[in-house]
């Protein structure tokens, strides 16, 4: 039982990390209806830029600011050269454009900063079990995982407030609901998109730091984004809360599946188990747990 809980908690905490990536998807999808496949590339870009700036001798805080600015610039440029010319195109076209964008960003990031694997240290947070939990229940919980969970909790609360209570947040939701109506009542669409992409860039930066500190900054970070897709499917594309819950479900199911089901088929099922789970889930609830139900009209 102890082992079960250890796996479960480990899974839930790693699920939080998926949620961090999934959040970026949800933000952009909510505001512009674009399924941003480049989110993973943005995570990679952010982490690589951060490490690169650190290597140039900048302190932690400064590197954070510089990377954030880089992400804002990336968002603005994307809006100008990718989204604006493609406005009113079908969603699938935009989706494919973001696949292209993902390649572009990956190439750019590696071209500028090099392709070698780098370590990333977040000062003060080590990836080691918490002694207290170990003594009390005999369960190993990584300090780092807990920290990541805390960070995403803060991030989600901030985003929730931002979306629901601020002027910009309301404008964002209006744009998401209906572009043309939003334009008609004077919401500057382009500004909103820029803001959303900048915020998504910030989320990517946080996710990049977490994942980079955990696995090292390397090309494999882009695959993390692929792991976030089943999270989105289970949580629903439109829901911030869904991204969190979906992440927890996927994280827990992945680890439990690997430990308990994996040995039956020879292990290594982590790679596809979340997808198949999401697939089965789709058959029951095509719009996800918290997604909006769509009604088709002819």
């Amino acid at each position, binding site marked *: 039982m102890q082992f079960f809980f250890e796996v479960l908690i480990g899974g839930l905490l790693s699920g939080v990390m998926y949620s961090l990536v999934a959040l970026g998807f949800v933000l952009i999808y909510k505001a512009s209806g674009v*399924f941003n496949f480049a989110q993973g590339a943005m995570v990679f870009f952010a982490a690589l830029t951060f490490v690169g700036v650190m290597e140039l001798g900048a302190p932690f805080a400064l590197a954070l600011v510089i990377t954030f600015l880089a992400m804002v610039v990336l968002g603005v440029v994307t809006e100008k*050269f*990718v989204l604006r*010319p*493609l406005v009113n*195109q079908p*969603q*699938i*076209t935009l*989706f*494919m*454009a973001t*696949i*292209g*964008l*993902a*390649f*572009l*960003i*990956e*190439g*750019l990031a*590696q*071209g*500028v900063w*090099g*392709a070698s694997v780098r370590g990333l240290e977040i000062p003060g947070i080590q990836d080691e079990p918490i002694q207290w939990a170990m003594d009390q229940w005999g369960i190993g919980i990584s300090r780092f995982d807990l920290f990541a969970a805390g960070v995403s909790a803060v991030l989600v609360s901030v985003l929730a407030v931002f979306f629901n209570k601020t002027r910009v947040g309301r404008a964002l939701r209006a744009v998401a609901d209906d572009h043309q109506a939003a334009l008609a009542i004077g919401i500057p669409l382009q500004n909103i998109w820029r803001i959303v992409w900048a915020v998504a860039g910030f989320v990517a930066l946080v996710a990049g730091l977490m994942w980079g500190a955990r696995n090292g900054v390397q090309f494999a970070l882009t695959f993390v984004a*692929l792991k976030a*897709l*089943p999270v*989105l*499917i289970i949580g629903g594309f439109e829901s911030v809360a869904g991204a969190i819950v979906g992440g927890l479900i996927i994280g827990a199911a992945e680890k439990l599946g690997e430990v308990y089901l994996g040995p039956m*088929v*020879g*292990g*290594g*099922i982590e*790679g*596809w188990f979340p*997808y*198949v789970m*999401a*697939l089965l889930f*789709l*058959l029951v609830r*095509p719009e996800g747990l918290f997604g909006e139900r769509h009604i*088709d*009209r*002819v």
Partner: protein
Amino acid sequence: MLYREAGQFKATYAEDQRIFPIRQDRIAIALILVFFFVLVPAFANQYWLQAILVPVLIFSLAAIGLNILTGYAGQLSLGSAAFMAVGAFAAYNFMLRVPGMPILVAFVLGGLCAAGVGILFGLPSLRIKGFYLAVATLAAQFFVVWALTKFPWFSNNSSSGVISAQQVKILGYAFVSPESKYLLTLAVVTVLALAAKNLVRSSIGRSWMAIRDMDVAAEVIGFRPMRTKLSAFAISSFYCGVAGALYAYTYLGTVEPEGFNLDMSFKILFMIIIGGVGSILGSFLGAAFIVLLPIFLNISMHVLGDAVPKGLASNLELIVFGGLIIFFLIVEPHGLARLWQIGKEKLRLWPFPH
């Protein structure tokens, strides 16, 4: 002046419905076929045949498969490479385990196995659309590669799932030389491409397009979504499967499951975006473009020499691919095939455009 159909009257239904209704088109197709079947193998060197033309043809076939699914039936798929892998490994196992199996039959059976897997992973498409479906096909991508690596039976217990294709032999003739392999590939691709061209203008092709354009409306006027979508998945996967078998047998000879990774699926998707979504001709143009582009970039890198920083050069391919995709989607969403169409329209009026 040359390309004008004035005076070509269609006197029978058969003439009206033929696949290339304009005489100039028929002549052009015949010339192209003669060129690729006779002149190319006679004059092209080994490098061109083996490293460029064969992969272009094979990827064209895979792109046709994806085009049937995405371009005609409107179901986005990110798992084309997985279906290719199924085709390759199924053909290998049929050759290995069934004594006296003719290679062409093995190709077809490989395609059919891929079609079966395609139907299985196409089932969710009945309930979900768009990028939800794209994610579902990712499940196929990861699951198939995992299964082929994990179960040694598929690769006849070779280490890490690598298979070596058996010798290709038809009626006692062994296809060893690059020319013969090229011709075999070309023949298979030609037959299947013609079949696809006919398929998409038949009733089943029309039902795909109806589902693509608006599935609820299509359902209302009497198309069965299940049959339509699953047939698109099946036929698309069949094409990918045969392409995969060719990939193993006439192109590489030795393949491993990891070779059919997500990158390859993306490449095939890029081929249809650049070539033209919903166009058989576009599949060929796109495949040629995507296969030739890295080679072209490589050569231009050599020419430029040290002018380009080393770190950037190796990533230039990624950047150019990504940039081109965005460029094409913005400027010409219908791809190279549309450019050709525009050219044809211009040609009809040339040299007196008014």
